């Protein structure tokens, strides 16, 4: 009860950088707040009205002072801007090699889907010392996945993927909050991150009840939904063969080029007519409303798993390096 925390735990590589800027800002704010307060109190006492008819000195201004207190705050704020932008760039750009985990928010729980097949609710197990990338979407309203100890958060928006990344530095459990108001039980949409030592994490991975990897579930779904009747490795498919598509650029009918990331794959499954690959007809049905977010994740993970080695002789149509 009397153990009052005044500062949050620090459990990611970025947390120290955020805190450094925060302490700088606290110091700067403290200095200016004290400066103003001291001047006001000093002037109020030193120049207090001594008799009822007294008036102040007829001072109208001073150009040098005005320039000074315009330019100095400008310089200080630009320093903060660049510093904050630098920290933000580090947050916004994950390293190339990350442990990818999918998160689906819904009123009022967090569903976590590991690539290796494990599923969790309001729990997230990750190893120490490895960058983790969370690829997140929502089934209903806007939520926000926030881990204060890692100093990161992002709104989780229906109809698209957003991503955040962090690299845990300390084993332990840390709070997950939903930070965007989402209805009745908003404040109950909380969970825990369990950061584990690598060995313990391996044990957790093998001890779970995973029913095959996410990609293998996607492969089965790919067949069940008859995706494979059109998306096939021979040249007779009515849709492009998908091996090696992920992460590469795709030429579209209107000759624009997009990079096939998770959001592109999502759109191409849910609303295929939005971006049609060059050389193909818009014949694919839209799966919006027909498959769940989890099924979508499985399909995407399956497409990602199709390595270019499996592709036939030629480059897949419309795909280029």
């Amino acid at each position, binding site marked *: 009860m009397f153990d009052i*925390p*005044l*500062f949050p735990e620090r459990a990611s590589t970025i947390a120290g950088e955020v805190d450094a*800027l925060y302490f700088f*800002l606290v110091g700067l*704010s403290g200095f*200016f*707040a004290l400066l*103003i307060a001291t001047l*006001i109190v000093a002037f*109020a006492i030193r*120049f*207090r*009205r001594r008799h*009822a*008819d*007294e*008036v*102040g*000195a*007829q*001072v*109208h*201004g001073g150009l040098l*002072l*005005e320039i000074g*207190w*315009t330019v100095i*705050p400008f310089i200080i*704020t*630009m320093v903060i*801007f660049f*510093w*904050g*932008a*630098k*920290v*933000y760039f580090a*947050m*916004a750009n994950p390293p190339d090699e990350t442990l990818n985990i999918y998160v689906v928010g819904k009123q009022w729980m967090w569903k976590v889907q590991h690539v290796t097949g494990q599923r969790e609710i309001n729990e997230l197990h990750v190893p120490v010392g490895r960058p983790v990338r969370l690829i997140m979407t929502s089934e*209903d309203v*806007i939520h*926000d996945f*926030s881990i*204060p100890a890692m*100093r990161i*958060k*992002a*709104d989780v*928006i*229906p*109809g698209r993927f*957003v991503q955040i990344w962090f690299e845990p530095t300390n084993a332990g459990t840390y709070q997950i*909050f939903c930070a965007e*108001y*989402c*209805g009745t039980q*908003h*404040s*109950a949409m909380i969970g825990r991150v369990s950061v584990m030592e690598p060995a313990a994490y391996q044990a957790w991975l093998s001890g779970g009840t995973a029913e095959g990897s996410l990609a293998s579930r996607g492969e089965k779904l790919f067949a069940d939904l008859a995706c494979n009747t059109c998306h096939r490795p021979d040249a007779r498919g009515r849709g492009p063969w998908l091996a090696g598509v992920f992460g590469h650029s795709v030429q579209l009918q209107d000759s624009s080029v997009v990079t096939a990331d998770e959001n592109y794959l999502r759109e191409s499954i849910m609303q295929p007519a939005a971006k049609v690959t060059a050389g193909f007809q818009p014949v694919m049905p839209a799966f919006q409303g027909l498959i769940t977010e989890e099924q979508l994740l499985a399909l995407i993970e399956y497409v990602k798993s199709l390595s270019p080695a499996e592709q036939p002789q030629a480059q897949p149509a419309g795909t280029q390096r």
Partner: protein
Amino acid sequence: MATEFPAHHYLNDGYGIKSWLLTRDHKRIALLYLIAVTFFFFVGGAFAVLIRLDLATPPGDLVSDDTYNQLFTMHGVIMVFFFLIPAIPAILGNFLVPLMIGAKDLAFPKLNLLSWYIYIIGGLMGVYVLLTGGLDTGWTMYAPFSTRFSTTRVVPAALAIFVTGFSSILTGLNFIVTIHKMRAPGMGWFNMPLFLWSTYATSLINILGTPVIAITALLVAVERLFRFGFFDPALGGDPVLFQHLFWFYSHPAVYIMILPAMGVISELVAAFCRKPVFGYSFVAFSSLGIAVLGFLVWGHHMFVAGQSVYASLIFSMLSFLVAIPSAIKVFNWTATMYKGSVSWQTPMLYAIGFIGLFTIGGLTGLFLASIGVNVHVTDTYFIIAHFHYIMVGGTIMGYLGGLHYWWPKISGRLYPEGLSKLSAAIIFIGFNLTFFPQFILGYLGMPRRYHAYPPEFQVLNVLSSAGASILGVGYLLPMFYLAWSLRYGKPAGANPWGASGLEWTTTSPPPTENFPVTPTVTESPYHYPSPVVKHVA
């Protein structure tokens, strides 16, 4: 020398309900606003008290989840749309704009009365929402929660916001035309009191920004009623588009709320130091600078909302720029006190409180403009603390300071000085106790709009709740002693403060036509020749 009450003034120029409800006198309309706005302030305040009571303990045990969500929603909607936005412009602005420029009334007196009726209709719609199921979307009404998932009275609430907006637009229009066309002979733009500059800047934002929130509220209603897909991704809409439209108005709206208070502070500091405001033109143009730059920073509400990295960077930089005009004002007010004749009367105490609290509110804005820190503290209690330092520590301090300063002009009577100083001190202490712990809570990560919270946050929440109860007492006191002074206060005389400004040259309360003859202005607005000839009551 006993000051006597004038025989004829706007308050006794006609009695009975019709003489008030059909009045075209800007001063009476200001009082109509005062009554209505005060009503909404205490309704919104009562909701805040219930919120803080519930948050005294970690589990959500006082009210249900849904009730709690309605409490913070209605607290926000009422305080923003029915108190903060109209408070200073519609009450003090209405009363003072003609008096300060030496005019008989606003340019369009009937339009002015219409503004009040529109405000009342919007307000009654708000009360209807309250009585028939409330609203639980947060005042921000984010889609698709508001357009599909909420089961509360979203459509009537959106329409209430739509209607109320017209009141702000018409009042803004009225002020702009009045300031352009009706200044007394000799009053050039740079002879205007700074309150008018900030009122002018506010009016510009009102007429440019308010139509956007009106349309946005309408789009929410249309999507909800007819399933048109503007914002809901399931209907092909974009939920982030809603946020762009919402904040395109609602960030400038922050300046609608704070700029008038800044204008009041300029008047108070000059009057209670008996000295011209230091750097008049810098203070004047900083108001316009805030109004213009304020339209270019809305994206800083959306750093974690799926906005592109580069958009965020630009919005971050512009947000730092908008801090500069505010800093200029703070430095100039402080410099005005130098070699002043500083009185410690109640309005000056509010002005000093404003400068201190607004400084903290502004400096914590730098934390939020800085994206790297924003990601961690946005959507937490840090945000709550920051904008309450601006809105409550800034706007309400300015409003109460202004109300006390011009109360003798409005009512013709003096309020009890000791009691008013005491309540200013209570408000200052209560305010800091309520909101300072919330900065710490926010950096710890406690999200806003949480009905229940982890137990380690309790001590800071208890401090905040204790502060809120002190703050509540501080706000109730002025209501009682100001009402008391209407009957029992000593007559104030024309100029109880020995202040400059045209409004102090006419009787208190002023006659209906404000000035017996149209004044001619020959001096700067803050002309304090030595020695002052007026007597201080």
